């Protein structure tokens, strides 16, 4: 069984961001901390594009098993089976590698809290990417939730750019952030 190796914007939020013109393409040497790796569709494509380490955090059992199968094939994926709230365990595993990009894609109620907690692990010049799903935060009008969440983000981050992924993914917004 051969796998289809084209990187599809319908299944990957990172690729959809690149197609819509955001400056998030890899250069070749970055270390990435990826929260919410799932079965590893995006992680597999990222590992071909960089020489650095990719730390893939995932909580569910059924999704971690294909992720480990993928990590055995590639040479730079480190699967971590842990809840993304548990930053102490992640810090222990990262040791002293310098993280260049932090990406988070966990559609849940406290999505903003998770990334503020995780941003304490990285330095000030790290690029922080977030794909926010407004539909899973509240059932009210999505414009209203978007304004509330971006206000909450501005307490801890500086928003460089934001773009709606409506063409490929319903109710998603991509943020590029920087630590204050």
């Amino acid at each position: 069984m051969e796998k289809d190796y084209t990187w599809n914007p319908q299944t990957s939020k990172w690729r959809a961001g690149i197609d819509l013109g955001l400056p998030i393409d890899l250069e070749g040497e970055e270390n990435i901390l990826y929260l919410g790796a799932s079965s590893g569709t995006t992680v597999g494509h990222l590992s071909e594009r960089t020489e650095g380490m990719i730390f893939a955090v995932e909580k569910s059992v059924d999704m971690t098993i294909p992720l480990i199968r993928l990590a055995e094939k590639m040479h730079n994926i480190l699967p971590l089976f842990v809840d993304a709230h548990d930053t102490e365990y992640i810090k222990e595993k990262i040791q002293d590698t310098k993280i260049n990009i932090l990406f988070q894609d966990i559609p849940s109620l406290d999505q903003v809290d998770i990334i503020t907690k995780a941003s304490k692990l990285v330095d000030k010049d790290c690029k922080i990417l977030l794909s926010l799903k407004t539909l899973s935060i509240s059932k009210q009008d999505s414009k209203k939730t978007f304004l509330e969440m971006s206000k909450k983000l501005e307490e801890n981050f500086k928003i460089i750019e934001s773009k709606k992924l409506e063409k490929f993914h319903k109710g998603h917004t991509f943020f590029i952030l920087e630590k204050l």
Partner: protein
Amino acid sequence: MIKSKQVVDSIAEAKIRVQESISKDKLIMFVTRILEDTRNDPEVDLFGRVIELYYYLNPYRKAYRKAIYEYFQKEIKCKYGLMLDEEEMNYIKIIFSEITPQFRFKDGKVMKGRLKGILEKLTKKYLPHSSEVIDSFILGKLICSVGGMENLMRKPASTIQLIGSEKALFRHNKSGNPSPKYGLLYYTRELQEANKKGKKARQLSNKLAITIKQDYFEKFAR
């Protein structure tokens, strides 16, 4: 392509942590689903259910149709997956001695009774308090429909009462029709005999919400 030591270590540690958190409710779900299938159609194809169990026993070994059939005929060895004790090995041996290479039961009508006996013994072992409250087949169905014991433990009593009647509940939310009183619990013997079914369903689900939490922290929690 050489893997560094950090990568190899983290793969090995993730494997151990995954193995600790695969729990025995997967086995209960497997038997319930097979029993439900054979009740609807005694000559049903079981390949989809069997491959699901195979990947819980050997998560990192790939196999095809013929190899999977031969694996279950021999003595089962599992290294990285769900660990079975001798009693459960016997149950699996009983089930797979009756399956043909086309993944169908030789005699579906006889297997219905045997599968029910196995399910009763399993629920008595792992869910001792809840199996006294309701029938073991419906208890298994409740676990299947939310996808595991940990998810069911987090549900309140009012949600357990309405599992299985989602369509009627959302219709009620949308257009104000009368709300449903019971879901899967309707098929228990206690509800069939009762005069006031809504009252009985509320009482049963209140009791279940307590006993399921009791069972989870005795047998499943890490």
